[in-house]
């Protein structure tokens, strides 16, 4: 424990309160969170905060919905720069380097003191910790985490003469199924596509899954070197492109992330690749039996993890940091994590959450809830680098260029790599 963090910890434990708190009122902290999962979640988060405030009268958490992940980051960094950040925020785990570079986040190691704390910190799935730790410190607490899974319409499978209970296991099967599932009307217009991999919003994330399956990663873990033009990445992008362009089993061009679930509900696509955070949404809105599976394999199985971590701001008082830590810790306790997972579809962050009674009975009633967890053993960290927004934009733009046919796969990836090199050079 270095000196500064030691001071923080002492200050917090000795309750060296500032004058404003001397009256003995609760420590007030705000919690910025994005809604990646539709409007209803604001109520879930509000209720969680209420519950926590009830159990901990000395702390008052105010949850603040801050928009999408992107906007939440904007808000948190802007607020940090103007000196009044929220004590706790839920940000994409990949924004870790951005937050560190801006000196906006404090590692949580300083708050982990008791053996129980230490046990808690080591209770998370290791796959989630990859995006939460760097340089020997832990910067984020896994909270709203996900992986990419494949959803399929069992009815469409049956109609196409496929076994409705069997998802494609590898790329070849996935392609063959998709071709069989693509339906055309008399005039040759497509009425149902075989599969759909969305390419707005987070195309780098989906490409990362394909690249992993083909045996390559996109960046090193220090976040200062990318390998966008590696052969596996090219193979992944080529496969993605070919699904639509060559094999006509996937809608051509750029496919909107936001309408993908709706496309699936409307039977415009028989399979879709999207976040496991969509599980509750699909369960509520799909008017047909559906299945959830791990993504198909090529050289190996693979999906990046995704979603948000809880981060504690640097520029707030030690008492607030301590309170934020307590809230974050409470949010990730097995019981709460299990309920959160049941309500949203996100992966519960620790194996212990899957051992709770409520999770067990839920999984029994709804086995797809376990798919994302089982995939974790094949998962790797999501693409995260210094100047993450810029680097991912370079990749996203070029992936879209390749998919819309304005650049070849290799040219697009080379361009993305060159741009990323330029951006990351100062960080080595």
């Amino acid at each position, binding site marked *: 424990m270095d000196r500064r963090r030691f001071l923080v910890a002492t200050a917090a434990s000795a309750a060296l309160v500032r004058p404003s708190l001397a009256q003995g009122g609760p420590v007030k902290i705000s919690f910025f969170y994005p809604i990646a999962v539709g409007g209803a979640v604001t109520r879930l988060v509000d209720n969680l905060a209420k519950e926590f405030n009830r159990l901990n009268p000395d702390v008052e958490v105010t949850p603040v919905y801050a928009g999408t992940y*992107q906007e939440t980051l*904007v808000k948190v960094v802007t607020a940090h720069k103007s000196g009044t950040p929220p004590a706790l925020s839920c940000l994409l785990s990949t924004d870790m380097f951005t937050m560190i570079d801006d000196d906006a986040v404090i590692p949580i190691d300083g708050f982990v003191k008791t053996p129980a704390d230490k046990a808690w910190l080591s209770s998370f799935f290791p796959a989630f910790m990859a995006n939460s730790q760097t340089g020997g410190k832990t910067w984020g607490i896994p909270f709203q985490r996900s992986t990419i899974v494949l959803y399929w319409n069992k009815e469409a499978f049956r109609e196409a003469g496929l076994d409705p209970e069997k998802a494609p296991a590898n790329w070849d099967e996935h392609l063959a199924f998709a071709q069989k599932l693509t339906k055309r009307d008399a005039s040759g217009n497509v009425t149902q596509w075989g599969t759909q991999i969305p390419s707005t919003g987070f195309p780098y994330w989906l490409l990362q899954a394909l690249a992993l399956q083909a045996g390559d990663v996109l960046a090193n873990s220090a976040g200062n070197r990318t390998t966008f033009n590696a052969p596996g990445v090219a193979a992944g992008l080529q496969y993605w492109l070919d699904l639509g362009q060559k094999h006509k089993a996937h809608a051509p061009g*750029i*496919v*909107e992330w936001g309408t993908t679930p709706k496309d699936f509900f409307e039977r415009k696509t028989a399979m879709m690749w999207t976040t496991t955070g969509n599980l509750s949404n699909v369960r509520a809105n799909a008017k047909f039996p559906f299945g959830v599976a791990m993504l198909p394999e090529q050289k190996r199985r693979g999906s990046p993890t995704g979603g948000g971590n809880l981060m504690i701001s640097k520029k707030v008082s030690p008492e607030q940091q301590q309170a934020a830590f307590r809230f974050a810790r409470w949010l990730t306790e097995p019981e709460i994590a299990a309920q959160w997972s049941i309500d949203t579809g996100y992966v519960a962050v620790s194996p212990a959450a899957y051992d709770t009674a409520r999770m067990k009975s839920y999984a029994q009633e709804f086995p797809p809830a376990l798919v994302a967890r089982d995939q974790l053993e094949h998962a790797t960290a999501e693409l995260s680098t210094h100047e993450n927004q810029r680097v991912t934009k370079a990749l996203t733009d070029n992936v879209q*260029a390749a998919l*819309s046919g304005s650049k070849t796969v290799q040219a697009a990836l080379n361009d993305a790599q060159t741009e990323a090199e330029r951006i990351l050079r100062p960080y080595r």
Partner: protein
Amino acid sequence: MKKSHSDALIGWGLMAPAMLFLIAFTHWPAIASIIESVYSTPRARRPSSFVGLDNYEQILADPVFWQSFTNNLWFAVGTIPASIFLAILMALWVNDRIPGRTFARMAYFTPTVLPMIAVANIWLFFFTPQYGLLDQVMGLIGRPATNWLGTKDTALWAVIMVAVWKEAGFFMIFYLAALQGISPVLAEAASLEGASRWTFFRRVQFPLLMPTTLFVLINAVINAFRMVDHIIVMTRGGPDNATSLLLFYIYQVGFNFWDTAYAAALTVFMLVLLAGAAAIQYGWLERKVHYS
């Protein structure tokens, strides 16, 4: 002499409060952008330093900037004439005593009172391939599905369409007001001389609408560089920057990449662009003021 002194004092006094705010939030930030743009962005571990014209060199070498710039020009070319033409047409129609004019007038104006941020989501539905409204209609006439927002060639036109929809009805109001201000005597005189309706419009109404057109034109030009709400909702500048406009790019650089110095340089570029447009139009406006 005495009077003009007190006049000057009162004049300054009356103007001062507005001037203060104008300078604080328009002129000062414009100058500050220029200053900011010759320094590097401060980072936690690297303080800001003087870099001269580096940021401007970066602009010249930045393909996304050039793309946003050309997109913005196309956006202007696509929205300004179309919305002005439609506004005039709407005003002419609504100005006549025809059945349905009350409905039409209301309908044309609704986009003005609907928030773009919300309506953009509805347009997103219109443009959705296959079951989106546009494709449902296209389907009826046997056309295949089109990925309007997901294809580089159509995405910009799709967002232009939304902008025209948003603007035309607002401009119509100004034209309507102007049309109703034209003396009916002129119409009588023209009809006595046997002019056709088209001739009357071209020779009498349209020239008389010139001041309105100038006013509307100024607004349309500004809007062409200011409307980005629907970009944020519908495309986020994609696919592959096909719909990235200058202000959106400034927002992205400034508030997503935190490269404030570069954002400042981009802002300066935009200011120069707007100042150029202003100079041209102000020249026109001046001449018009002379006439009246």
